[in-house]
């Protein structure tokens, strides 16, 4: 099948002078086609999502009851680390890069990404990096048992698994930086005539800004882990007080990367939601310009709030106050986005297909996560809550409910465009409701655990925490199993789904809906005429 397309459509591409891609595995290894690469990113991220999810289930199985039942404390800590690294760098980030590869050229009317060969590189580095992370489990001493934050001196004590993880993180960073450069160049230079920046679809805007965040923050992480590496092996003492260093320095560098990183995850999610909600409200997005400014504001402020993760490290009162105020400020543009989405739906003509359900789920749960973020921003309160399950609940509300719900919204929204086939709407709704219920079962009760004082990153707990941990563990298994349904839905759509037209959703806007479904292997080889959006 030399002309197998993308996720699996197979409309022939008729009117062009290129030859088809090579067949078999070489097609995927050598491809420079943004659709192929986008699909590979998406499949890869889903596989990593399952791997990271399995690790989460090991953690939740151990926490089902007090006492040690399933794993040793040592292995438990390794699972904590790998679960987070794989979910953040292997599942969520690549998922949105996959969306960007598929959709940015289609949305701006470009034939491909600007640097097609580098795009291939960015992708193929990823499996290698993930392999290193997973390999670290099998070397003497096992994977790092430090949590994804890799704080020294604990990370200096670790075995060679730590070195593999550091190398893996370097590769992931390279991949992200190349991806970022590619996206910025594509968006700034390859828009269809007539598409000014302020007429660009919101998804492209969020990615343009995210790409700058990537380029600015990933090298910082690379620097931090390189310093760690030299502390471990080459006698430097950046993070060792005995040699004039300071362990807390690492935390400053890490979170200078880490807080922008959370917006690297959140902004593309905002972008997807900003496409889906107008489509199913049949009404243009409310306050386009103010949304763009809000995203830019969030991105800039995100570099100035990092030490809200470090309130109890012993930073001085003035530092705590500054970081508290700065963090509270970032809540304003975040709130504005929520208001904009609600106003978009106001007086719309709403319908609730699966993408819209996931978008609504996103809105509901992300807002809850934003509120717990505001609570944590208050230093006096955070002193009670830092390093407890309350923080775990907070960031799962913003990351799982924020990013994963949004990724599902995007996947259901664009799947018909990618494959040419409609998914099963009933099953899609099942997937949504199961995910929503089990998600809350897993994570809502963790607020109570954190308030009552249960620390995070412990394999065992006092008896008073038993009930909520049981509920959370049962929810987690439900949540994990429900995600397999998505795999089934995608495969089923490919096999026996209904064929769709170019305009899949009656309310959807944008150039991507002007090309046939499935999108042909090559699109927009001559730039389309962009007639201006509604803004």
């Amino acid at each position: 099948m030399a002309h197998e397309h993308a996720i699996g459509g197979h409309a022939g591409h008729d009117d062009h002078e290129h030859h088809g891609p090579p067949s078999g595995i070489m097609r995927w290894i050598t491809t420079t086609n943004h659709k192929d690469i986008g699909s590979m990113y998406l499949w890869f991220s889903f596989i990593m999502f399952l791997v990271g999810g399995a690790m989460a289930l090991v953690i939740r199985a151990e926490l089902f009851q007090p006492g040690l039942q399933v794993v040793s404390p040592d292995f438990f800590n390794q699972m904590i680390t790998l679960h987070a690294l794989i979910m953040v760098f292997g599942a969520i980030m690549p998922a949105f890069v996959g969306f960007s590869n598929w959709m940015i050229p289609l949305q701006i009317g470009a034939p491909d990404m600007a640097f097609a060969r580098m795009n291939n590189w960015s992708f193929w580095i990823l499996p290698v990096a993930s392999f290193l992370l997973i390999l670290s489990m099998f070397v003497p001493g096992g994977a790092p048992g430090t949590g994804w934050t890799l704080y020294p001196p604990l990370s200096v004590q670790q075995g060679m698994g730590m070195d593999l993880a550091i190398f893996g993180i370097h590769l992931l960073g390279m991949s992200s930086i190349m991806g970022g450069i590619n996206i910025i160049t594509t968006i700034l230079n390859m828009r269809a005539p007539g598409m000014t920046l302020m007429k660009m679809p919101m998804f492209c805007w969020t990615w343009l800004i995210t790409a700058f965040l990537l380029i600015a923050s990933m090298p910082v992480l690379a620097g931090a882990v390189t310093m760690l590496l030299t502390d471990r092996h080459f006698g430097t003492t950046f993070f060792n007080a005995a040699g004039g260093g300071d362990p807390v320095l690492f935390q400053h560098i890490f979170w200078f990367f880490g807080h922008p990183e959370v917006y690297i995850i959140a902004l593309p999610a905002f972008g997807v939601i900003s496409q889906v909600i107008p489509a199913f409200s049949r009404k243009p997005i409310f306050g386009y310009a103010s949304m763009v400014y809000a995203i830019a504001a969030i991105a800039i402020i995100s570099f100035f709030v990092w030490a809200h993760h470090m309130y109890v490290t012993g930073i001085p009162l003035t530092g705590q106050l500054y970081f508290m105020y700065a963090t509270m400020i970032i809540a304003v543009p975040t709130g504005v986005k929520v208001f904009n989405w609600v106003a978009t739906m106001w007086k719309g003509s709403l319908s609730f297909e699966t993408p819209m359900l996931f978008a609504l789920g996103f809105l509901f749960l992300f807002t809850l996560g934003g509120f717990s973020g505001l609570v944590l921003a208050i230093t006096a309160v955070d002193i009670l809550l830092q390093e407890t399950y309350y923080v775990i609940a907070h960031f799962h509300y913003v990351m799982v409910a924020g990013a994963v719900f949004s990724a599902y919204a995007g996947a259901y929204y664009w799947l018909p465009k990618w494959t040419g086939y409609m998914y099963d709407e009933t099953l899609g709704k099942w997937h949504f409701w199961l995910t929503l219920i089990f998600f809350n079962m897993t994570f809502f009760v963790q607020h109570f655990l954190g308030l009552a004082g249960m620390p995070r990153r412990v394999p065992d707990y006092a008896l008073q925490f038993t009930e909520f941990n049981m509920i959370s563990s049962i929810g987690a298994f439900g949540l994990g199993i429900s995600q397999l349904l998505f795999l089934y839905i995608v495969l089923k759509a490919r096999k026996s789904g209904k064929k769709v037209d170019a305009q899949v959703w009656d309310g959807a806007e944008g150039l991507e809906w002007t090309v046939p479904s499935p999108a042909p292997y090559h699109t927009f080889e001559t730039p389309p005429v962009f007639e201006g959006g509604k803004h």
Partner: protein
Amino acid sequence: MKVSMKKFASVTGATALAIWSLISSSSAWADYQLNMHVPVTEAGRRAYDLHNDISLICLAIFIIVFGVLAYSLIFHRKSKGHKAADFHEHLGVEIAWTVIPSIILVLIAIPSTTTLMEMKDTSEPAITVKVTGYQWKWGYDYLKGEGEGIKFLSVLATPKDQIHNKAEKSPSYMMEVDNPLVVPVNTKIRILTTANDVIHAWAVPAFAVKQDAVPGFIRDTWFKAEKEGTYVGQCSELCGKDHGYMPIVVKVVSAGEYSTWVDEQKKKAASNVDDPNKVWTLDESMVRGEKVYNTACASCHGANGQGIPGTFPALDGSKIAKQAKNKAAHIDIVLHGKAGTAMQAFGGQLSDTDIATVVTYERNAWGNKTGDVIQPADIKAVR
């Protein structure tokens, strides 16, 4: 769609019921709680109130925003024939929803600032205690005030059998230590934190206290407990394998009881002093050494000296512990530790006698039958 939703409802109902019966039967829901403990310090209560107030403000905003959304979801449906309006901008609304949240945040920021300033004011303590985090225990060192000079380690007291589910778990499971920190009620206690190896964090929710303990640096925090009782907390920074097993227990007692406790401790310390010139026999050393080994070394090197492959070396059969030529190296690594690894310097934690006997123990326990007996004087000579 209708049919499947009905099926869905009945399936979820049944599952919920099953799960509910499982959870409610598993224990009595005796101790669960939905909100924080009410702290027993004034600063803590202010933080607690602040948390409640902010949560309520969030709830109110949530209800307003999602009330509007709910209205829209119900009445602006396509299935009800609602036609989409065409507006997509409104300057007034957009300014309002930027300015109003900003004002609310300023109102929150004011009490947050004053509360924090109170929590950070560590001046004029009556008693100062230095807390040192070790992998995986706490050291307490009374530096100033009544009780000055008292010094002890505090280790988890829960038996291994309970952790490994071979024995019934006691109500204080994981929240019990051999030597709790004891302080008088209504007295300002300043806590200095530091660590010996990696970062730990000393935390007691009832005092609204949490402070990282950073190796090589001293940080501080304080509390003034207003109610007698026993308060617990846990290490709150991941510090390796047994991070979950280094609880903090603080006993707050009356001034009188505290004085009695201080006297007892002083007497105990005086009677515990070993004669540094005593010459120990092998049998004596093995008894004392095993005790030291089990409290200080077994968490890493294993109760039978087997270690954890790849992470903590086995001592049973190890070159250092078995070969005669490595006797000095053996003493050296216990005394001074090994930089960059979890093997910490025990010179500051253990007395010469403890180190001598534990080295003797390691050189004679399990398969290591070297017959070497190390004397306290040998340790003193190389300190």
